[in-house]
């Protein structure tokens, strides 16, 4: 049976709405990716060793813990 596009459109809007409510999780993922890429610029990271935990303390301040293992540290070079 063919799927009518009207139903598909309703389904799409529902999915997008649900995704929107999950955006806070994506924000943490972006923070992690950003932080990882910062260290990635200077270290040859050991695959899968990068960990980052973000928690909120009772006084409302953020506690961020970052840990990783690196195989090497890059020299700072200028691209020719």
């Amino acid at each position, binding site marked *: 049976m*063919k*799927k*009518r*596009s*009207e139903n*598909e*459109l309703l*389904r*799409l*809007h529902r*999915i*997008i709405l649900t*995704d929107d409510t999950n*955006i806070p999780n*994506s*924000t943490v*993922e*972006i923070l992690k*990716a*950003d932080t*990882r*890429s*910062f260290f*990635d*610029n*200077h270290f*040859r*990271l050991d*695959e899968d060793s990068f960990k980052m935990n973000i928690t909120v303390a009772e006084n409302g301040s953020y506690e961020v813990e970052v840990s990783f293992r690196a195989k090497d540290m*890059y020299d700072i*070079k*200028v*691209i*020719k």
Partner: protein
Amino acid sequence: MGKSIVVTSGKGGVGKTTVTANLGIALAWRGRKVVLVEGDIGLNNLDVCMHIEDKVLYDIGDVVKNKCTINQSLVPFCDNLFVLPATSMTSTLVSTLQFIEIVDKLKDAFEYVIIDCPAGIEDSFHRAIKGADEAILVTTPHIASIRDAYKVSRVLSSYRLEKQGLIVNRMQGANVLDRTMLSAKEITNALQLELYGVIPEGNDVNLFSVITELKPNSPVTFSYNLIAEYLDGGAKKIYDYTAEYKGLFNKLLRKLRQ
């Protein structure tokens, strides 16, 4: 100074690499100096898509290792169009900072730097989008692809990459008229993005077909030329992918085929 545009989608297999290649060709046909950058380091396809895999001597990995200059690593495709390949197996070879530096240097020499972004929203995706001034999102008219494009659009906005345009690929006009496929307008409204253009599903398009291989009057070639014209500061014209299926005769023909 040129501008850098990342072609992204979220979902794999929607035609990012093909769109990157064909937009580059269409802009080069207009006389613009263009370079395509393989952003999918480790799982590169741009070289294969453009049939230049045998011409690659150096790649982006050699540039960061100072084995060659950026100019030495560029592979010519046609007049005004070059490709910076990434044939290295290791994605982590090129850091985000190095990638941004390379793109910035290319912007000094080229009018358009088009980055082919990897699928997904993992580390290599973040590296690719950080080199870009603006983004083109590619989606097919299927829900999974549209949803991923939406998510990617939100991530791009988090990076304050606000100039985002949409290309809907593989549209089938007959199915849209029969209401069995979402229209480009419906997709654009759902994603709340500016529609740059529509690429029709072409019978003459095989996997990784570039428009240099198609007939000059192919609807696919025509629609890429329209998008390139708009990107290049011309008027916006969207290809009417339903035109050839409209009319009583075509409607009867579609009914007979069902």
